[in-house]
């Protein structure tokens, strides 16, 4: 077989004391009246202190569900975590009680959401909402919480924070609302920040400002960050590593530089080729043909095979496993080596 040069090996080296956050073979499904949707099918990734992992994928690939599983805010039912482990500082969160998990939320792992308008409560002032975390979780007095809320609003660069603390979410622009969401997530100095498509609902110029802010804050506060996005452009400047998701699986996992240089999975390759290039005139936009799979009927073998230009019989029959391509990269493709060699050309 053509992929004989690639041999399955265990994941890359673990730092002393283990990873800060590690997912092991997570399976999540949604049980609805129409049937069972297999949303997460064996996701494993890890995050070390101080680094940024980008999770990339199109809508329905399971990237947000994975994040919500880490936070423990999945609606169960309909969601069911079938198997797997979510290790935070070596402890499996999935075996903890709800009360123990609540203590982790916000304090250890915090999250910011895509649509800041609906993510904020419309009937409470923003300062009250930021301060609520401090009063409820850190036992601060009203006055202290208020002062700290102003500090946090200053930290995320909201002009005139002290004056705007009594304003309601609808009185802010999209970018400012997202900053409030970030301030709220930072209230308890979390070690991990999960940003779930933080810029998708924003204008392009504002997107860049928010991404810069997140990168600065991550560095200044020495957090680790999981950046969930479907936008390859957002990832490049911020992330250290990228995990590409498709149909509830991590199909490719690599550091940013080598992934951009030579993707080793046909799906990643397709994504990169579909970015319009400013330096080539009159080119036809390249697209990935077909549609993402229905999660109630995921194709046999490699879930990407119906859309894949490299498809062979083996792809229909055999589910590819993580193939390690040296320098810590993995790709779930039977022809990973070939794809990478093609891409590198």
């Amino acid at each position, binding site marked *: 077989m053509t992929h004989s040069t690639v041999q399955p090996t265990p994941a890359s080296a673990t730092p002393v004391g283990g990873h800060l956050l590690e997912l092991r073979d997570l399976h999540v499904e949604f049980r609805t009246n129409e049937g069972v949707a297999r949303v997460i099918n064996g996701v494993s990734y890890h995050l070390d202190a101080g680094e940024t992992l980008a999770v990339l994928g199109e809508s329905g690939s399971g990237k947000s569900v994975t994040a919500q599983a880490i936070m423990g805010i999945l609606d169960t039912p309909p969601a069911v975590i079938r198997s797997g482990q979510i290790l935070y500082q070596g402890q499996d969160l999935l075996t903890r009680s709800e009360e123990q998990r609540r203590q982790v939320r916000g304090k250890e792992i915090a999250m910011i959401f895509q649509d800041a308008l*609906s993510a904020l409560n419309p009937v409470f002032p923003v300062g009250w909402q930021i301060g609520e975390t401090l009063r409820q*979780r850190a036992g601060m007095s009203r006055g202290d919480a208020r002062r700290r809320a102003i500090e946090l609003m200053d930290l995320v660069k909201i002009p005139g924070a002290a004056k705007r603390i009594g304003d309601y979410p609808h009185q802010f622009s999209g970018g400012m609302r997202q900053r409030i969401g970030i301030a709220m997530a930072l209230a308890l100095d979390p070690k991990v920040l999960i940003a779930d498509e933080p810029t998708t609902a924003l204008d392009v110029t504002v997107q860049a400002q928010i991404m810069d802010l997140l990168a600065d804050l991550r560095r200044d506060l020495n957090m680790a960050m999981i950046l969930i996005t479907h936008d390859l452009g957002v990832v490049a400047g911020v992330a250290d590593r990228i995990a590409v998701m498709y149909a509830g699986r991590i199909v490719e996992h690599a550091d940013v530089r080598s992934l951009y240089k030579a993707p080793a999975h046909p799906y990643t390759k397709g994504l990169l080729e579909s970015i319009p290039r400013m330096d080539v005139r009159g080119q036809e936009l390249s697209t990935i043909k077909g549609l993402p799979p229905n999660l109630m009927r995921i194709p046999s073998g490699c879930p990407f095979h119906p859309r894949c230009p490299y498809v062979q019989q083996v792809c229909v029959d055999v589910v590819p496993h993580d193939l390690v391509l040296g320098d810590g990269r993995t790709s779930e493709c039977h022809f990973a080596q070939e794809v990478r060699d093609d891409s590198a050309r």
Partner: protein
Amino acid sequence: MFRYILRRLLQMVLAFFGTTLIVYALMFAGQGDPIQALAGERPVTEAQRAYLTEKYHLDATGVGGFFYRYFDYVRSLLQGDLGQSLTGRQIGDILQAAWPVTVKLALIALAVAIIFGVTAGVVAGIRRASIFDNSTLVLTLLVLGIPTIVLAPLAQYFLGVKWQLFPPTAGSEPTFYALLLPGIVLGSLSLATALRLTRTSVAENLRADYVRTARSKGLVKRRIVTVHVLRNSLIPVVTFLGVELGNLMSGAIITEGVFNIPGVGFNLFRGIRTEDGPLVVGIVSVLVVVYLVSNLVVDVLYAVLDPRIRYE
């Protein structure tokens, strides 16, 4: 906000004249001989007829005569004089005696709707598709399906007459206890609607994105529900209850009739039955004002509850 209230008040003036005019026209258009209606079965002498024609300006005929009488009526109305009922009593006195009873009844009904309807609605909304949710659904549909004209006599017969848990009728100067059963009957409809509304609103808000944010902040579930979800869910419920209080005050004709409660609805019903034109028009004019004011209060309250609402 001030400009908005001012504009609404001006609109209310128009609405007030419009409705009183229509009620006035309808009430007196149907009458053949108002003087004979006033006298009832007894014969009317020529002298009496001449006196009454003079007094009520019945000599002016046609549309001109109608408007002449209408404006005459409105003029005294604006001076606070509701005129005399055909029975000879001052309508102002009748209303003064009837209002406290009706207000008490309306408040009992509203309290029933809030205590049972809103509470059960919140529980049903949190426990969607549970046994509690489904049984309240069936019960509320049942209550909404039974008209008051059936429910009130049934309640009176079983709870008042047969099992004697409550006084079957209220009579003049009713006590709180005597008004309790009528209040529950009157409030049952508001209760059912408030329950459905609260349930839907809570269920919807529990799925809102801001609840997910509140959970990610690590708040306890109790706080998420009682502070975040309830504050949002109760906005439509409070507005509904405000409008409902206006409805309840504007006379529960059937309930007051069945339980013999001397309130506004009872008097209105008697006025209609005895073709007492001045009484009907007088009561309806006051009810129109009550309704208009309560609606304005609800609109203002809505803006207070929901910071997103701004009136210009």
